[in-house]
Protein backbone atom coordinates (compact mmCIF):
# COMPACT_ATOMS: atom_id res chain seq x y z
CA UNK A 1 0.00 0.00 0.00
CA UNK A 2 2.70 2.45 1.02
CA UNK A 3 4.83 1.40 -1.92
CA UNK A 4 1.93 2.11 -4.27
CA UNK A 5 1.61 5.61 -2.94
CA UNK A 6 5.30 6.26 -3.42
CA UNK A 7 5.45 4.96 -6.97
CA UNK A 8 4.67 7.37 -9.80
CA UNK A 9 3.18 4.60 -11.96
CA UNK A 10 -0.36 4.11 -13.13
CA UNK A 11 -2.33 1.14 -11.72
CA UNK A 12 -2.00 -0.70 -15.00
CA UNK A 13 1.69 -0.09 -15.40
CA UNK A 14 2.28 -1.25 -11.86
CA UNK A 15 0.22 -4.37 -12.35
CA UNK A 16 2.11 -5.14 -15.55
CA UNK A 17 5.41 -4.53 -13.80
CA UNK A 18 4.58 -6.90 -10.95
CA UNK A 19 3.40 -9.55 -13.39
CA UNK A 20 6.66 -9.66 -15.26
CA UNK A 21 9.21 -8.44 -12.71
CA UNK A 22 11.30 -11.13 -11.05
CA UNK A 23 10.06 -12.19 -7.64
CA UNK A 24 13.42 -12.55 -5.97
CA UNK A 25 16.58 -10.67 -6.89
CA UNK A 26 19.92 -11.99 -5.71
CA UNK A 27 22.84 -9.58 -6.09
CA UNK A 28 26.50 -10.03 -5.26
CA UNK A 29 25.93 -13.09 -3.10
CA UNK A 30 29.14 -14.47 -1.63
CA UNK A 31 29.63 -17.37 0.75
CA UNK A 32 32.84 -19.03 1.88
CA UNK A 33 33.12 -22.14 3.98
CA UNK A 34 36.46 -22.83 5.61
CA UNK A 35 37.64 -25.04 2.75
CA UNK A 36 35.94 -23.56 -0.30
CA UNK A 37 34.28 -20.55 -1.87
CA UNK A 38 30.73 -21.69 -2.63
CA UNK A 39 29.38 -18.44 -4.04
CA UNK A 40 31.42 -15.54 -5.32
CA UNK A 41 29.51 -12.46 -6.38
CA UNK A 42 26.51 -14.53 -7.55
CA UNK A 43 23.63 -12.73 -9.29
CA UNK A 44 20.31 -14.32 -10.14
CA UNK A 45 16.62 -13.47 -10.56
CA UNK A 46 13.93 -15.93 -9.50
CA UNK A 47 10.85 -15.59 -11.72
CA UNK A 48 7.41 -15.02 -10.24
CA UNK A 49 4.76 -17.72 -10.11
CA UNK A 50 7.00 -20.41 -11.57
CA UNK A 51 8.14 -23.71 -10.19
CA UNK A 52 11.91 -23.57 -10.40
CA UNK A 53 14.36 -26.37 -9.69
CA UNK A 54 17.99 -25.97 -8.74
CA UNK A 55 20.22 -28.71 -10.09
CA UNK A 56 23.97 -29.16 -10.15
CA UNK A 57 26.97 -31.29 -9.18
CA UNK A 58 27.39 -32.55 -5.62
CA UNK A 59 28.59 -29.93 -3.19
CA UNK A 60 28.00 -27.05 -5.58
CA UNK A 61 25.77 -25.38 -3.02
CA UNK A 62 22.22 -26.10 -4.18
CA UNK A 63 20.86 -26.38 -0.65
CA UNK A 64 23.13 -23.62 0.59
CA UNK A 65 21.54 -21.31 -1.96
CA UNK A 66 17.96 -21.78 -0.80
CA UNK A 67 19.08 -21.85 2.83
CA UNK A 68 20.62 -18.43 2.37
CA UNK A 69 17.60 -17.12 0.48
CA UNK A 70 15.34 -18.39 3.28
CA UNK A 71 17.65 -16.98 5.96
CA UNK A 72 18.66 -20.29 7.52
CA UNK A 73 22.35 -19.62 6.87
CA UNK A 74 23.93 -16.18 6.94
CA UNK A 75 25.57 -15.02 3.73
CA UNK A 76 29.00 -13.39 3.82
CA UNK A 77 27.92 -10.54 1.59
CA UNK A 78 25.30 -9.67 -0.97
CA UNK A 79 21.64 -8.74 -1.05
CA UNK A 80 18.52 -10.81 -1.55
CA UNK A 81 15.24 -8.95 -2.00
CA UNK A 82 11.66 -10.15 -2.47
CA UNK A 83 9.79 -7.60 -4.57
CA UNK A 84 12.33 -5.15 -3.23
CA UNK A 85 11.70 -6.12 0.38
CA UNK A 86 13.93 -7.96 2.82
CA UNK A 87 13.10 -11.49 4.03
CA UNK A 88 11.60 -10.42 7.37
CA UNK A 89 8.87 -8.46 5.58
CA UNK A 90 7.47 -11.41 3.63
CA UNK A 91 5.71 -14.67 4.34
CA UNK A 92 7.41 -17.77 3.06
CA UNK A 93 7.28 -21.52 3.57
CA UNK A 94 10.17 -23.92 3.90
CA UNK A 95 10.08 -27.71 3.63
CA UNK A 96 13.02 -29.64 5.04
CA UNK A 97 14.43 -32.85 3.63
CA UNK A 98 14.39 -34.44 7.07
CA UNK A 99 10.70 -34.29 7.95
CA UNK A 100 11.28 -36.46 11.00
CA UNK A 101 13.40 -33.79 12.59
CA UNK A 102 11.46 -30.85 11.25
CA UNK A 103 8.05 -31.86 12.65
CA UNK A 104 7.26 -31.31 16.33
CA UNK A 105 6.58 -34.80 17.71
CA UNK A 106 4.84 -33.42 20.81
CA UNK A 107 2.13 -31.81 18.68
CA UNK A 108 -0.59 -33.61 16.75
CA UNK A 109 -0.32 -33.21 12.96
CA UNK A 110 -3.13 -30.64 13.05
CA UNK A 111 -1.28 -28.48 15.58
CA UNK A 112 1.93 -28.89 13.62
CA UNK A 113 0.22 -27.38 10.59
CA UNK A 114 -1.28 -24.61 12.74
CA UNK A 115 1.99 -23.78 14.51
CA UNK A 116 3.27 -21.06 12.13
CA UNK A 117 -0.09 -19.30 12.49
CA UNK A 118 0.31 -19.44 16.26
CA UNK A 119 3.74 -17.83 15.92
CA UNK A 120 2.11 -15.07 13.86
CA UNK A 121 -0.40 -14.47 16.64
CA UNK A 122 -3.47 -15.66 14.73
CA UNK A 123 -6.37 -16.42 17.14
CA UNK A 124 -7.21 -20.07 17.74
CA UNK A 125 -10.56 -20.14 15.95
CA UNK A 126 -9.04 -18.65 12.81
CA UNK A 127 -6.07 -21.01 13.02
CA UNK A 128 -8.42 -23.97 13.04
CA UNK A 129 -10.41 -22.56 10.13
CA UNK A 130 -7.32 -21.94 8.04
CA UNK A 131 -5.91 -25.41 8.66
CA UNK A 132 -9.25 -26.93 7.74
CA UNK A 133 -9.36 -24.84 4.58
CA UNK A 134 -5.94 -26.02 3.44
CA UNK A 135 -6.85 -29.63 4.20
CA UNK A 136 -9.92 -29.24 2.03
CA UNK A 137 -8.03 -27.44 -0.76
CA UNK A 138 -5.38 -30.11 -0.98
CA UNK A 139 -7.95 -32.85 -0.56
CA UNK A 140 -5.80 -34.44 2.13
CA UNK A 141 -7.05 -37.72 3.51
CA UNK A 142 -4.89 -38.14 6.58
CA UNK A 143 -6.08 -38.32 10.18
CA UNK A 144 -4.56 -35.10 11.49
CA UNK A 145 -5.24 -36.11 15.07
CA UNK A 146 -2.30 -38.48 14.86
CA UNK A 147 1.14 -37.57 16.11
CA UNK A 148 3.84 -37.36 13.41
CA UNK A 149 5.59 -40.52 14.64
CA UNK A 150 2.36 -42.45 14.06
CA UNK A 151 2.41 -41.54 10.35
CA UNK A 152 4.30 -42.83 7.33
CA UNK A 153 7.17 -40.80 5.93
CA UNK A 154 5.10 -39.51 3.02
CA UNK A 155 2.25 -38.46 5.29
CA UNK A 156 4.69 -36.61 7.53
CA UNK A 157 6.21 -34.79 4.57
CA UNK A 158 2.73 -33.92 3.31
CA UNK A 159 1.95 -32.47 6.74
CA UNK A 160 5.14 -30.44 6.63
CA UNK A 161 4.23 -29.13 3.15
CA UNK A 162 0.84 -28.12 4.56
CA UNK A 163 2.61 -26.41 7.44
CA UNK A 164 4.64 -24.42 4.91
CA UNK A 165 1.54 -23.49 2.90
CA UNK A 166 -0.83 -22.59 5.71
CA UNK A 167 0.54 -19.06 6.04
CA UNK A 168 -0.32 -18.34 2.37
CA UNK A 169 3.35 -17.89 1.54
CA UNK A 170 4.50 -15.64 -1.26
CA UNK A 171 7.25 -18.12 -1.97
CA UNK A 172 7.79 -21.77 -1.13
CA UNK A 173 11.19 -23.43 -0.68
CA UNK A 174 11.67 -27.19 -0.73
CA UNK A 175 15.05 -28.72 0.05
CA UNK A 176 15.16 -32.22 -1.48
CA UNK A 177 11.73 -32.87 0.01
CA UNK A 178 11.25 -36.39 -1.36
CA UNK A 179 14.73 -37.86 -1.08
CA UNK A 180 14.02 -39.61 2.23
CA UNK A 181 10.90 -41.32 0.84
CA UNK A 182 10.58 -44.61 -0.99
CA UNK A 183 9.92 -44.53 -4.73
CA UNK A 184 6.18 -45.18 -4.55
CA UNK A 185 5.74 -42.37 -2.06
CA UNK A 186 8.00 -40.08 -4.09
CA UNK A 187 5.78 -40.48 -7.16
CA UNK A 188 2.69 -39.77 -5.08
CA UNK A 189 4.26 -36.71 -3.48
CA UNK A 190 5.34 -35.29 -6.86
CA UNK A 191 1.68 -35.29 -7.85
CA UNK A 192 0.71 -33.65 -4.56
CA UNK A 193 3.29 -30.91 -5.09
CA UNK A 194 2.17 -30.38 -8.67
CA UNK A 195 -1.43 -30.02 -7.48
CA UNK A 196 -0.42 -27.52 -4.84
CA UNK A 197 1.40 -25.52 -7.47
CA UNK A 198 -1.42 -25.66 -10.01
CA UNK A 199 -3.90 -24.50 -7.38
CA UNK A 200 -1.88 -21.75 -5.74
CA UNK A 201 0.64 -20.66 -8.42
CA UNK A 202 3.02 -19.82 -5.61
CA UNK A 203 6.59 -19.08 -6.65
CA UNK A 204 8.33 -22.33 -5.76
CA UNK A 205 12.02 -23.14 -5.49
CA UNK A 206 12.84 -26.84 -5.38
CA UNK A 207 16.25 -28.34 -4.75
CA UNK A 208 16.44 -31.78 -6.27
CA UNK A 209 19.11 -34.38 -6.85
CA UNK A 210 16.89 -36.24 -9.32
CA UNK A 211 17.02 -34.74 -12.81
CA UNK A 212 13.88 -36.50 -14.01
CA UNK A 213 11.95 -35.13 -11.05
CA UNK A 214 13.39 -31.64 -11.54
CA UNK A 215 12.38 -31.49 -15.22
CA UNK A 216 9.00 -33.16 -14.68
CA UNK A 217 7.94 -30.71 -11.99
CA UNK A 218 9.54 -27.50 -13.18
CA UNK A 219 8.85 -24.58 -15.47
CA UNK A 220 12.47 -23.50 -15.08
CA UNK A 221 15.60 -25.46 -14.26
CA UNK A 222 18.60 -23.60 -12.92
CA UNK A 223 21.75 -25.56 -13.71
CA UNK A 224 24.67 -24.62 -11.51
CA UNK A 225 28.39 -25.15 -12.07
CA UNK A 226 30.80 -26.59 -9.53
CA UNK A 227 31.75 -24.17 -6.80
CA UNK A 228 32.13 -21.29 -6.84
CA UNK A 229 28.68 -21.81 -8.33
CA UNK A 230 27.45 -19.72 -11.22
CA UNK A 231 24.32 -20.20 -13.32
CA UNK A 232 25.35 -22.29 -16.33
CA UNK A 233 21.97 -22.30 -17.98
CA UNK A 234 18.39 -21.45 -17.11
CA UNK A 235 16.35 -24.05 -18.97
CA UNK A 236 12.71 -23.35 -19.81
CA UNK A 237 10.23 -26.21 -19.91
CA UNK A 238 6.67 -25.09 -20.59
CA UNK A 239 4.75 -28.33 -21.04
CA UNK A 240 1.15 -27.83 -19.92
CA UNK A 241 -0.05 -28.99 -16.49
CA UNK A 242 -1.17 -31.24 -15.09
CA UNK A 243 1.72 -33.29 -16.35
CA UNK A 244 1.39 -37.04 -16.21
CA UNK A 245 3.42 -40.19 -16.83
CA UNK A 246 2.67 -39.62 -20.49
CA UNK A 247 4.46 -36.27 -20.34
CA UNK A 248 7.67 -38.12 -19.58
CA UNK A 249 7.44 -40.06 -22.82
CA UNK A 250 7.04 -36.97 -24.98
CA UNK A 251 9.89 -35.79 -27.19
CA UNK A 252 10.12 -32.37 -25.56
CA UNK A 253 10.56 -33.84 -22.09
CA UNK A 254 13.18 -36.31 -23.31
CA UNK A 255 15.09 -33.63 -25.20
CA UNK A 256 15.14 -31.21 -22.28
CA UNK A 257 16.20 -33.89 -19.88
CA UNK A 258 18.99 -35.00 -22.23
CA UNK A 259 20.11 -31.41 -22.66
CA UNK A 260 20.25 -30.84 -18.88
CA UNK A 261 22.11 -34.08 -18.40
CA UNK A 262 24.68 -33.09 -20.98
CA UNK A 263 25.34 -29.77 -19.28
CA UNK A 264 25.43 -31.45 -15.90
CA UNK A 265 28.01 -33.99 -17.05
CA UNK A 266 30.13 -31.33 -18.68
CA UNK A 267 30.17 -29.44 -15.36
CA UNK A 268 30.97 -32.58 -13.40
CA UNK A 269 33.93 -33.36 -15.68
CA UNK A 270 35.31 -29.85 -15.23
CA UNK A 271 35.77 -30.57 -11.54
Amino acid at each position, binding site marked *: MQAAAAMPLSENARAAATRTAPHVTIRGLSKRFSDATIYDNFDFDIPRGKLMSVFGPNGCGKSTLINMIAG*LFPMDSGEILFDGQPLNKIKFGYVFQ*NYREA*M*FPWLRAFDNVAYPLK*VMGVPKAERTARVERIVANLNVKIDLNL*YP*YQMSGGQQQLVSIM*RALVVDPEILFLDEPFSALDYEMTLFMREQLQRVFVETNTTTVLVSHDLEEAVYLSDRILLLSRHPARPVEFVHYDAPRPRTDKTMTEAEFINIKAHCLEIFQREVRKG
Partner: protein
Amino acid sequence: MNWKRMQVLLPFVGVIVLLAIWSFATWMRVVDPVLLPSPIATFKAMWAGMFHGKLGIDFVKTVERTIYSTIIAALIAIPLGILLGSSEKLYRSVEFLIDFFRSTPASAMFPLFLVLFGVGDRTKISVAAFGAALVILFNVAYGVMNARKTRILAARVMGASRVRVLWDVMLLESLPQTFVGLRNGVSLALVIVVVAEMFIGSVDGLGQRVFEAQQMFDMPAMYAAIFAAGALGYGLNLLFLTIERRFVHWSGK
Protein backbone atom coordinates in the same frame (compact mmCIF):
# COMPACT_ATOMS: atom_id res chain seq x y z
CA MET B 1 -1.50 -69.10 22.13
CA ASN B 2 -1.35 -70.45 25.65
CA TRP B 3 2.41 -70.04 25.53
CA LYS B 4 1.97 -66.33 24.66
CA ARG B 5 -0.23 -65.89 27.69
CA MET B 6 2.29 -67.70 29.87
CA GLN B 7 5.03 -65.29 28.81
CA VAL B 8 3.45 -62.56 30.94
CA LEU B 9 4.48 -64.62 33.95
CA LEU B 10 8.18 -64.71 32.98
CA PRO B 11 9.26 -61.92 35.37
CA PHE B 12 7.98 -64.00 38.31
CA VAL B 13 10.24 -66.94 37.50
CA GLY B 14 13.30 -65.28 39.01
CA VAL B 15 11.37 -64.31 42.15
CA ILE B 16 10.07 -67.84 42.63
CA VAL B 17 13.52 -69.36 42.08
CA LEU B 18 15.02 -66.95 44.63
CA LEU B 19 12.31 -67.76 47.18
CA ALA B 20 12.82 -71.49 46.57
CA ILE B 21 16.58 -71.29 47.09
CA TRP B 22 16.07 -69.12 50.15
CA SER B 23 13.51 -71.54 51.67
CA PHE B 24 15.75 -74.48 50.87
CA ALA B 25 18.75 -72.78 52.51
CA THR B 26 16.89 -72.03 55.73
CA TRP B 27 15.24 -75.48 55.77
CA MET B 28 18.61 -77.20 55.32
CA ARG B 29 20.18 -74.76 57.80
CA VAL B 30 22.94 -73.93 55.31
CA VAL B 31 23.19 -70.52 57.01
CA ASP B 32 22.77 -69.79 60.71
CA PRO B 33 18.99 -69.21 61.13
CA VAL B 34 19.74 -66.19 63.29
CA LEU B 35 21.48 -64.53 60.33
CA LEU B 36 19.02 -65.68 57.66
CA PRO B 37 15.40 -66.11 58.79
CA SER B 38 12.97 -67.97 56.55
CA PRO B 39 11.04 -66.07 53.86
CA ILE B 40 7.83 -66.65 55.81
CA ALA B 41 9.27 -65.16 59.03
CA THR B 42 10.58 -62.21 57.01
CA PHE B 43 7.28 -61.48 55.27
CA LYS B 44 5.38 -61.89 58.54
CA ALA B 45 7.70 -59.31 60.07
CA MET B 46 7.18 -57.08 57.05
CA TRP B 47 3.40 -57.39 57.17
CA ALA B 48 3.27 -56.78 60.91
CA GLY B 49 5.72 -53.89 60.67
CA MET B 50 3.99 -52.20 57.75
CA PHE B 51 0.43 -52.42 59.06
CA HIS B 52 0.70 -52.73 62.81
CA GLY B 53 4.19 -51.59 63.72
CA LYS B 54 6.70 -48.81 63.21
CA LEU B 55 7.94 -49.91 59.78
CA GLY B 56 4.93 -48.33 58.05
CA ILE B 57 5.60 -44.98 59.69
CA ASP B 58 9.28 -45.19 58.80
CA PHE B 59 8.37 -46.05 55.22
CA VAL B 60 6.14 -42.98 54.94
CA LYS B 61 8.86 -40.79 56.51
CA THR B 62 11.42 -41.94 53.95
CA VAL B 63 8.96 -41.42 51.10
CA GLU B 64 8.29 -37.88 52.33
CA ARG B 65 11.96 -36.99 52.59
CA THR B 66 12.79 -38.46 49.20
CA ILE B 67 9.89 -36.73 47.48
CA TYR B 68 10.58 -33.37 49.15
CA SER B 69 14.24 -33.47 48.22
CA THR B 70 13.44 -34.47 44.63
CA ILE B 71 10.86 -31.69 44.32
CA ILE B 72 13.27 -29.09 45.71
CA ALA B 73 16.01 -30.40 43.42
CA ALA B 74 13.71 -30.28 40.38
CA LEU B 75 12.48 -26.75 41.16
CA ILE B 76 16.04 -25.48 41.30
CA ALA B 77 17.70 -27.66 38.67
CA ILE B 78 15.17 -27.60 35.82
CA PRO B 79 15.02 -23.80 35.32
CA LEU B 80 18.76 -23.51 35.91
CA GLY B 81 19.46 -26.36 33.49
CA ILE B 82 17.35 -24.71 30.79
CA LEU B 83 19.14 -21.41 31.35
CA LEU B 84 22.60 -23.00 31.22
CA GLY B 85 21.70 -25.28 28.32
CA SER B 86 20.32 -22.45 26.19
CA SER B 87 23.82 -21.00 25.94
CA GLU B 88 26.59 -23.48 25.35
CA LYS B 89 29.21 -20.89 26.39
CA LEU B 90 27.46 -20.38 29.71
CA TYR B 91 27.31 -24.13 30.31
CA ARG B 92 30.97 -24.65 29.41
CA SER B 93 31.96 -21.99 31.91
CA VAL B 94 30.34 -23.85 34.82
CA GLU B 95 30.71 -27.38 33.48
CA PHE B 96 33.76 -28.13 35.63
CA LEU B 97 31.96 -27.09 38.82
CA ILE B 98 28.91 -29.21 37.98
CA ASP B 99 31.01 -32.24 37.10
CA PHE B 100 33.18 -31.80 40.18
CA PHE B 101 30.31 -31.66 42.65
CA ARG B 102 28.41 -34.31 40.72
CA SER B 103 31.41 -36.58 41.29
CA THR B 104 31.74 -35.68 44.96
CA PRO B 105 30.00 -38.35 47.09
CA ALA B 106 27.05 -36.56 48.65
CA SER B 107 27.66 -38.52 51.86
CA ALA B 108 30.92 -36.59 52.21
CA MET B 109 28.81 -33.43 52.49
CA PHE B 110 26.87 -34.61 55.57
CA PRO B 111 29.15 -32.93 58.15
CA LEU B 112 28.98 -29.64 56.24
CA PHE B 113 25.19 -29.74 55.99
CA LEU B 114 24.96 -30.75 59.66
CA VAL B 115 26.82 -27.57 60.57
CA LEU B 116 24.56 -25.54 58.29
CA PHE B 117 21.17 -27.02 59.14
CA GLY B 118 21.64 -28.88 62.45
CA VAL B 119 20.37 -32.35 63.26
CA GLY B 120 16.98 -32.89 61.68
CA ASP B 121 14.95 -33.30 58.57
CA ARG B 122 16.35 -30.17 56.93
CA THR B 123 19.83 -31.63 56.75
CA LYS B 124 18.72 -34.96 55.29
CA ILE B 125 16.46 -33.33 52.75
CA SER B 126 18.97 -30.69 51.71
CA VAL B 127 21.86 -33.13 51.22
CA ALA B 128 19.62 -35.37 49.12
CA ALA B 129 18.31 -32.36 47.18
CA PHE B 130 21.87 -31.22 46.57
CA GLY B 131 22.86 -34.59 45.11
CA ALA B 132 19.71 -34.97 43.04
CA ALA B 133 19.83 -31.38 41.78
CA LEU B 134 23.24 -31.81 40.18
CA VAL B 135 22.13 -34.96 38.37
CA ILE B 136 18.94 -33.29 37.12
CA LEU B 137 20.76 -30.08 36.18
CA PHE B 138 23.32 -31.95 34.10
CA ASN B 139 20.65 -33.90 32.23
CA VAL B 140 18.36 -30.92 31.58
CA ALA B 141 21.24 -28.78 30.33
CA TYR B 142 22.38 -31.51 27.94
CA GLY B 143 18.80 -32.10 26.83
CA VAL B 144 18.47 -28.44 25.88
CA MET B 145 21.90 -28.27 24.24
CA ASN B 146 21.24 -31.38 22.17
CA ALA B 147 17.89 -30.17 20.86
CA ARG B 148 17.64 -31.13 17.20
CA LYS B 149 19.11 -28.33 15.12
CA THR B 150 16.62 -28.89 12.31
CA ARG B 151 13.68 -28.46 14.68
CA ILE B 152 15.06 -25.18 16.00
CA LEU B 153 15.69 -24.00 12.43
CA ALA B 154 12.15 -25.05 11.48
CA ALA B 155 10.73 -22.88 14.27
CA ARG B 156 13.02 -19.97 13.41
CA VAL B 157 12.11 -20.18 9.72
CA MET B 158 8.45 -19.86 10.74
CA GLY B 159 9.34 -16.62 12.46
CA ALA B 160 9.58 -17.79 16.07
CA SER B 161 11.56 -15.48 18.36
CA ARG B 162 14.45 -16.72 20.51
CA VAL B 163 12.25 -16.89 23.59
CA ARG B 164 9.55 -18.76 21.70
CA VAL B 165 12.09 -21.24 20.29
CA LEU B 166 13.34 -21.82 23.84
CA TRP B 167 9.83 -22.26 25.19
CA ASP B 168 8.15 -24.14 22.33
CA VAL B 169 11.01 -26.24 21.05
CA MET B 170 14.05 -26.54 23.31
CA LEU B 171 12.02 -27.07 26.46
CA LEU B 172 9.99 -29.88 24.92
CA GLU B 173 13.03 -31.32 23.17
CA SER B 174 14.77 -31.56 26.54
CA LEU B 175 11.86 -33.33 28.28
CA PRO B 176 12.95 -36.93 27.56
CA GLN B 177 16.43 -36.15 28.93
CA THR B 178 14.88 -34.25 31.85
CA PHE B 179 13.00 -37.39 32.82
CA VAL B 180 16.20 -39.41 32.67
CA GLY B 181 17.60 -36.85 35.11
CA LEU B 182 14.53 -37.03 37.36
CA ARG B 183 14.66 -40.83 37.49
CA ASN B 184 18.36 -40.83 38.34
CA GLY B 185 17.80 -37.95 40.74
CA VAL B 186 15.06 -39.65 42.72
CA SER B 187 17.14 -42.85 42.97
CA LEU B 188 20.11 -40.89 44.28
CA ALA B 189 17.91 -38.92 46.68
CA LEU B 190 16.58 -42.18 48.12
CA VAL B 191 20.11 -43.52 48.62
CA ILE B 192 21.21 -40.34 50.37
CA VAL B 193 18.08 -40.14 52.53
CA VAL B 194 18.43 -43.76 53.69
CA VAL B 195 22.12 -43.30 54.50
CA ALA B 196 21.37 -40.04 56.32
CA GLU B 197 18.68 -41.76 58.36
CA MET B 198 21.21 -44.34 59.49
CA PHE B 199 23.86 -42.06 60.79
CA ILE B 200 22.74 -38.58 61.77
CA GLY B 201 20.93 -38.96 65.10
CA SER B 202 17.73 -40.13 63.42
CA VAL B 203 14.60 -41.33 65.19
CA ASP B 204 12.69 -42.56 62.16
CA GLY B 205 12.94 -43.55 58.50
CA LEU B 206 13.81 -46.81 56.74
CA GLY B 207 17.55 -46.28 57.20
CA GLN B 208 17.08 -45.90 60.93
CA ARG B 209 14.80 -48.99 60.97
CA VAL B 210 17.40 -51.15 59.22
CA PHE B 211 20.10 -49.89 61.51
CA GLU B 212 18.07 -50.34 64.71
CA ALA B 213 16.93 -53.85 63.75
CA GLN B 214 20.55 -54.78 63.12
CA GLN B 215 21.62 -53.34 66.48
CA MET B 216 18.91 -55.38 68.24
CA PHE B 217 19.72 -58.44 66.18
CA ASP B 218 16.09 -58.62 65.00
CA MET B 219 16.96 -60.13 61.63
CA PRO B 220 13.42 -60.62 60.25
CA ALA B 221 12.72 -56.93 60.93
CA MET B 222 15.98 -55.93 59.28
CA TYR B 223 15.26 -57.92 56.13
CA ALA B 224 11.73 -56.56 56.16
CA ALA B 225 13.06 -52.99 56.24
CA ILE B 226 15.55 -53.75 53.46
CA PHE B 227 12.79 -55.14 51.25
CA ALA B 228 10.61 -52.15 52.05
CA ALA B 229 13.44 -49.85 50.92
CA GLY B 230 13.86 -51.93 47.76
CA ALA B 231 10.15 -51.80 47.02
CA LEU B 232 10.23 -48.04 47.54
CA GLY B 233 13.13 -47.55 45.13
CA TYR B 234 11.50 -49.73 42.51
CA GLY B 235 8.13 -48.04 43.00
CA LEU B 236 9.56 -44.53 42.62
CA ASN B 237 11.33 -45.51 39.41
CA LEU B 238 8.12 -47.05 38.08
CA LEU B 239 6.15 -43.95 39.04
CA PHE B 240 8.50 -41.68 37.10
CA LEU B 241 8.49 -44.05 34.12
CA THR B 242 4.69 -43.97 34.08
CA ILE B 243 4.61 -40.17 34.26
CA GLU B 244 7.20 -40.04 31.48
CA ARG B 245 5.23 -42.36 29.19
CA ARG B 246 2.16 -40.25 29.79
CA PHE B 247 3.70 -36.82 29.22
CA VAL B 248 6.65 -37.53 26.93
CA HIS B 249 4.81 -39.88 24.61
CA TRP B 250 7.17 -39.08 21.73
CA SER B 251 10.29 -40.16 23.63
CA GLY B 252 12.45 -42.49 21.54
CA LYS B 253 10.14 -42.26 18.50
